[in-house]
């Protein structure tokens, strides 16, 4: 057994564990935050899939961007995302993260989240119901198991491009180059 094969086996086991234990940091920026409590509580019970809320970015695996992001909140979101530990994933939640949704022509919201943070899974709808959120998590689980949820890696490789986009909309950039 060579190193490549043994690494493959380790990856399969680790991805299985990651798939069944997803700790979510729900960043309640927009109206989408109201759909998270029913997803987590008795009626839809996301915990049976291993999906659980995390208290801080350090403990979280998934950053759930629930709705539109203003140019003010995206700065915080970037800090939060960069404080999370690898492997980490981003779920864009609602139409606002895809194309701006009903705020497409607003002067202070961003339209396409993928230009600023690497999104692994989108959940569309305005609002997406808890069923849609659960299906989004199922989609993320599939991607993790297949090893295709590599947004964080993409972010690291193309950090300059993302930084340029971020700095274009954040006028007062008073942060270190990478927030550990």
């Amino acid at each position, binding site marked *: 057994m060579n190193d490549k094969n043994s690494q493959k086996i380790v990856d399969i086991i680790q991805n299985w*564990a990651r798939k069944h*234990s997803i700790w979510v940091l729900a960043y309640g920026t927009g109206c989408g935050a109201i759909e998270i409590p029913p997803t987590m509580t*008795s009626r839809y019970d996301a*915990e049976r899939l291993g999906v659980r809320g995390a208290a801080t970015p350090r403990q979280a695996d998934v950053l759930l961007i629930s709705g539109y992001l203003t140019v003010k909140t995206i700065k915080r979101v970037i800090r939060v995302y960069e404080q999370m530990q*690898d*492997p980490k994933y981003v779920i864009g939640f609602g139409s606002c993260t895809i194309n701006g949704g009903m705020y497409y022509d607003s002067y202070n919201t961003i339209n396409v989240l993928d230009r600023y943070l690497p999104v692994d899974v989108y959940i569309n709808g305005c609002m997406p119901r808890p069923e849609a959120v659960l299906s989004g998590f199922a989609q993320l689980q599939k991607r993790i198991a297949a090893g295709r949820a590599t947004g964080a890696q993409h972010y690291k490789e193309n950090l300059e491009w993302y930084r340029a986009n971020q700095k274009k909309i954040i006028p007062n950039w008073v942060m270190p180059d990478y927030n550990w």
Partner: protein
Amino acid sequence: MNILGAVVTFLLAFVVGMTYGGLNRKITARIQNRKGPPFYQNFIDAFKLASKKSAIHHGAMHHLGPAFLMVSSVVTLMIVPVLTHSQWFPNLNFQGDLIFLLYIMTFGPLGMALGAGQTGNPNSAIGVTRGLSQMVGFEIPWVMALVAIMIQYHTTSITGLMAAQAQSGTWLMFSSPFAFIAAILAMLGMFGYSPFDVVIAPAELASGPASENGGKYLFTMMSSGSVFAFVKLTLYVDLFLGGADNIIMLLIKTFALYMIPVLYSNTSVRYRTEQSIRWFWGWPTFFGLLAILQAVIF
């Protein structure tokens, strides 16, 4: 042989503690009319946490904090006898180990407090303050209960107390009931489940002292917490329920004891810190006083 036995003891404590934690989540879910995660969910979580990368640096104490917790758990595990007669579970008992145990059980939280202090996270600092305040609360009835049984049986060793129970044929739970009640009420605080989860307070303090710890740190804290839960339950079984002769009896007795904080947590909401301390200095301390009176007079 002794080293192998120590490893076996640790593995047993780890597996049982993790499984109890998973059952706690399952029972909580069923009480809330949910399906809940599988009982082995904690093992998956632990494995995932261990396989995460960690790129956090706040200084040496921050790295050592979870290690202090682990050391405290393992030393406690080595002192508490798991079964009454078994060569597979050696222990380092000596005259006066009950007093040593009182110290070593607070060693881990103190080390964790130092580590959490170095992160500079305000949530950690508040969590540490709350945790140490609450410890002052529940340590008093706990120490009173232990002092009472030490006076009553003229011994300061756990094996001595177990031998005394075997000799008299009754469990200490029945021969000194007030000490048992005070110790059980103190145990609610030791586990830190609701309503005494003022330290963790997930929706309020963002998990308190653990808020800067992710990945491998959290794995260490989780496994040491599981081992420590098993040790605490075993200690209560040894002191008050006459110990256990085999693993099955141990599991039955510890699980029955574990249900007390679990079910109590599911029927109550979080106290504020001062309410929690006042609670511990109320009835639990009163029962502790009764226990000492009983031990001195009778």
